[in-house]
C-alpha cells in the first residue's frame, strides 16, 4: 500500500480540482435555495431535459460550437422549469411528479431528434451531453497571458454570476424560500424571483455539466446544501457552509479518485473523478448527519444520555436525603438496585461514580452517604419537590396521593428563581401535603 505522499500530483490535477471546486460551489450556492424550496431534483431534471435544446441548436446552426450548444441547452433548461411550474399549477400535480413528466418527455424528444441527425454527423448523446472532468486541462485557452483551461473560465463566470445573484437578491431569496406568503404581502414578486432562480439554475446546470459532467451537477445541487442544513439554522451560514463543503468534496474527491483503488489493493489505477467527488459529498453528509451540533444523531444521543444521567444523579441525592430523614443515612449499592432508578443499574453505577467525583457522596464500608456539599444539593431538590407537591395540592386541587409523580418530574427542571416564586405564592409553607417538612434553602 503506497503512502499518501507517493501520489504523482501534476499541475493537471490542480486544474481538475480547481475547476471541480468552482463548479461545485456554483451549484451549491443555488442548491441551498432549491433544497429549501423542496425542488432539489431540478438539477437532475434539467440536466436530462436539455437534450432537445442541444439537438435543435445543432440542427438550426449546423455547428457543434459550444456557445451555440450552451444557448440551446440554456433555453430548454428554462423551459423545463416553466413547464414544470405550469403542470404543477394548472394540473395540481405535485412538484416532483410534474418534474418527472417534463424531463422524461423532453429527454425522449431529444433522443428522437438526435437520432434523426445521427446519420450525417457524430452527435452521440453521451458525448454531446456530458463533459468529463479528467479532460478539462487538455482544452486550454489564453486568459490574461496565462494558459487556462477553457472550462475554468466558463465555470468561473457562472460562479461569479451566482455569487452576484445571491448577494444582490439575498433578502428576496430568503423570504420567498422560507415564507412565500409573507414575501407576497410585503410586496416581493415571488414569481419573478422563482423564475430568475430557475433561469440561473438552468444556466449553471448546462455550463457546469458541459465542462465537468452531469453527476457532479446533480450531486452538488443537493448534497452539500443538505449537509449544511443539518449543521446550522442560519441561512447565511448555510450558504457559506454548503459552498465550503462543495469545494472540499471536490478536492478530496479527486484525491480519492487517484489514490483509492491503490489503497483497496486493486493495482495502480485511478477511477472516475466526478463520481468520487459525489461520493465525498455523500461522506460529508453522513458526517454532518452524525455529528451535527444540534440536529446530528450523535449529539442528540449525547444530549439524551447527559439528561438522563443528571436525573439519575438528582434522584440518588433525593433518595439519600429522604433516608437521612428516616434516620438511615447509609445505603448499599444493592439497595439502589431496588429503588429502580431510571436508566437501569448501569446508569446508576455511572451516576454514583460521578457523584463521588463531584464530592457529593462518599463510600465507606460498601455503603454510601451524603457529604455536606451533597446534602445542600439534595436539600435544594427535595425543597423543590415538596413545594411542587404543595402547589399542586393547594392551587390545582389535586388529591394528595396524586401529586408525587408530577412533582418528581418537575423537580428536575426547577431553577432557583422559580423555586423562590413558588414558595412566595404558597406563603412559605412548612410542610408538604404528606406532612413532610419542606427544608429551607441551603445556606451558601
Amino acid at each position, binding site marked *: 500500500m503506497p503512502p499518501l505522499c507517493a501520489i504523482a500530483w501534476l499541475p493537471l490535477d490542480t486544474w481538475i480540482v480547481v475547476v471541480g471546486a468552482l463548479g461545485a460551489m456554483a451549484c451549491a450556492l443555488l442548491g441551498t435555495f432549491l*433544497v429549501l424550496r*423542496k425542488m*432539489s*431534483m431540478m*438539477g*437532475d431534471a434539467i440536466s*436530462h431535459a436539455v437534450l432537445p435544446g442541444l439537438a435543435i441548436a445543432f*440542427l438550426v446552426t449546423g455547428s457543434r460550437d459550444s456557445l451555440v450548444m450552451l444557448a440551446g441547452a440554456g433555453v430548454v433548461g428554462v423551459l423545463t422549469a416553466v413547464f414544470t411550474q405550469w*403542470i404543477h399549477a*394548472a*394540473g*395540481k*400535480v*405535485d412538484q*416532483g*411528479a410534474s*418534474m*418527472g*413528466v417534463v424531463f*422524461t*418527455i423532453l*429527454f*425522449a*424528444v431529444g*433522443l*428522437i*431528434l438526435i*437520432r*434523426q*441527425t445521427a*446519420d*450525417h454527423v457524430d452527435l452521440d448523446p453521451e458525448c454531446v451531453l456530458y463533459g468529463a472532468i479528467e479532460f478539462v486541462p487538455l482544452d486550454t485557452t489564453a486568459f490574461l497571458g496565462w494558459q487556462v483551461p477553457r472550462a475554468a473560465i466558463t465555470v468561473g463566470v457562472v460562479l461569479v454570476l451566482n455569487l452576484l445573484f445571491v448577494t444582490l437578491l439575498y433578502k428576496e431569496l430568503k423570504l420567498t424560500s422560507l415564507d412565500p406568503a409573507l414575501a407576497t404581502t410585503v410586496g416581493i414578486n415571488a414569481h419573478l424571483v422563482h423564475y430568475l432562480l430557475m433561469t440561473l439554475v438552468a444556466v449553471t446546470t448546462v455550463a457546469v455539466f458541459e465542462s465537468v459532467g452531469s*453527476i457532479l451537477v*446533480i*450531486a452538488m*445541487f*443537493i*448534497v452539500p*446544501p*443538505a449537509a449544511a442544513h*443539518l449543521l446550522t439554522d442560519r441561512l447565511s451560514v448555510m450558504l457559506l457552509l454548503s459552498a465550503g463543503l462543495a469545494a472540499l468534496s471536490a478536492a478530496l474527491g479527486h484525491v480519492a*479518485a487517484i489514490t*483509492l*483503488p491503490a489503497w483497496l489493493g*486493486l*493495482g495502480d*489505477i*485511478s*477511477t*472516475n473523478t*466526478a*463520481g*468520487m467527488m*459525489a*461520493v465525498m*459529498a*455523500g461522506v460529508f453528509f453522513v458526517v454532518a*448527519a452524525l455529528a451535527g451540533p444540534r*440536529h446530528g*444523531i450523535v449529539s442528540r444521543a449525547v444530549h439524551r444520555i447527559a439528561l438522563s444521567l443528571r436525573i439519575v444523579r438528582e434522584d440518588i441525592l433525593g433518595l439519600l436525603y429522604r433516608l437521612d430523614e428516616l434516620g438511615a443515612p447509609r445505603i448499599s449499592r444493592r439497595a439502589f438496585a431496588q429503588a429502580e432508578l431510571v436508566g437501569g443499574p448501569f446508569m446508576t453505577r455511572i451516576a454514583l461514580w460521578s457523584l463521588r467525583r463531584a464530592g457529593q457522596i462518599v463510600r465507606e464500608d460498601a455503603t454510601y452517604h451524603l457529604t455536606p456539599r451533597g446534602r445542600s444539593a439534595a436539600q435544594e431538590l427535595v425543597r423543590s419537590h415538596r413545594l411542587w407537591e404543595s402547589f399542586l395540592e393547594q392551587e390545582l386541587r389535586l388529591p394528595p396521593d396524586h401529586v408525587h409523580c408530577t412533582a418528581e418530574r418537575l423537580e428536575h427542571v426547577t431553577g432557583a428563581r422559580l423555586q423562590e416564586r413558588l414558595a412566595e405564592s404558597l406563603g412559605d409553607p412548612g410542610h408538604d401535603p404528606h406532612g413532610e417538612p419542606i427544608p429551607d434553602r441551603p445556606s451558601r
Partner: protein
Amino acid sequence: MLRVLPIAVLVLGGLGVCSVLGQSDTGTLTDSSITWPGWAALLRVLTLQDYNTRVVVLGVACLGAAAGLIGAFMLLRERALLGDALSHATLPGIGLAFMVMVLFGGTGKWLPGLLLGASISGVLGVLCIMLIVRTMRIKQDAALGIVLSVFFGLGVAVTGIVQNMGSGHAAGLQSFIYGKTASMLLSDAVRIGVAGVIITFACLVLFKEFRLLCFDAAYARSQGWPVTLLDVVMMALVVGVTVIGLQAVGLILMIALLVIPPAAAKFWTTRLSRMVFTSALLGGMSCSLGAGMSALVPRLPAGAIIVCVAGLFFLISMFAGPARGVLARWWDQKRLVRSVARQNVLRAIYEVVESSDRDVPGAVTFDELVGRRTWSPREVQNALNCAIRGRLVRPDGFQRYALSDEGRQAAWRAVRNHRLWELYLITHADIAPSHVDRDADRVEHVLGDEMVAELEKLLADTHPNLTTPASPHRIDRAFHVERETA
C-alpha cells in the same frame, strides 16, 4: 357513459396519431433517411403478425401496466421521483456484482448476478431514503436527490475501477444493463410478464393496506398496521419492477413509466381503485402503441417513442380528464360563476319588487336592476339571459322582467338565505347591520340545507317571522352602503 367516452376518444386519438405518423411520406426533418411505412405495414404491426413485434409489444405492455400500477401508489405517497433515484442507485450494485464475479473467475456478465447486485443496491438506496426522511430534518425530495447522486457517483466510480482493471469484458457494462427496448428477447418479455403478474397480484392482495398507507399513514399506525413493513414491501415492489424494467427498456423510459401514467390517471378519477386501474391501463397502452410505432419505423428509438406517446396521453388527460382536468375545472368554475350571477339577478328582482310599488305588478325595469349592485349592464344582461333560458324570469318585451312561479321560488330561497345569514351575523357575531350585506352576499350561494336548518334553529327564539324575514337594513340603499364600505 360520461366516463367511458373520454377513454374511447383517447384510444382513437392515439390510434389516429399513430396512423397519421404512419401515413406521412416525408419526416419532419427533410434530410432524415427514415422511410415511413404504409398502411400494409401498419396493419401488420397493429395485428401483431411479426414474432419480434409481438414479443416486444406484449413485453413492454406488461411492464407499462405493472409500472403504472405501483407508480400510482408512489405518486400518492409523494414519491413520484423514487423511480428516478432508485434506477440510478442500482449502478454501484451492478459494478460491484461484476467485480465480484470477475474476481471469482467468471466473465462478469451473468445476468441474474448483475440483477441481484442491482436489486440489493436499489433496496439499500430506498432504505437510505426512508432513514434520512425519518431521522433527519431533510425533506423527501432532498433525500431522493442525495441517494440518487451519491449512489450514482459511487456507481460511476466503481465502474471506472472495473473498466481500468483490464479484464476486458467491462466495456458497455452500463448499456448492457440500461438496455434498448427494440432488441428485447423472448426471455426478457417472459421475465417482465412474470414480474408484472407478481406485482399486480401483490397490489391486489395488499390493496386495502396500501390505500390506508397512501392516505393516512398515522391512522394506519394507530390501527395497529405494520406501517414500516408495508412501506418496505411497497418499495420492494418498486425495486422489483425497476430492476427488471431497466434491463429491458432503459433508465429514462423506466422513470417515465413510473411517473407519467399515474400523473395522467389522476386527472380521470378521484377514486383510488379507478386511478390505479386507469394508470395501469394508460401505462400498458402507451407502451404497446409506442412499441408498435417503433416497429413501424425501425430507426426510431423505441424507448423514446414510448415516452412520447405516454406524454401525449398525459397532455390529453391533463386537458380533457373529467375529474381534475383543466377543461373540467374551467367548466365547473364557469358553471359556478353563472349560477351565482343567476341567483344574484333573481334576488335583485325580488327585492326591487318587494321594496316599492310597481306600475306593472311584479315587473322591474332593466335600469332598476343595474342600479341594485356593482355590476355592469353587460353582466346583468348575461345573468338575465341565463335566467330566462332557465324559465325563471319572463321578459315582457318592454325592457321589463318578471319572475315566473319557479323563479319566485328560487328567488325567495336566495333572499331567505341572504337574510338568515345577515340576521345570524347581527345577532350572534355582533356585526353592525350596515356591514352584513356584503358578507351575506358571498355566503348565500353556498348555504346548504343543513346549514339553513341550523340557522333557523339558532334564530328561532329571537326572530318570529323566519319564513320570509324582513331585511335587517334598508335595502333600497344597499348599493350605496356597499360603495361606502368598499
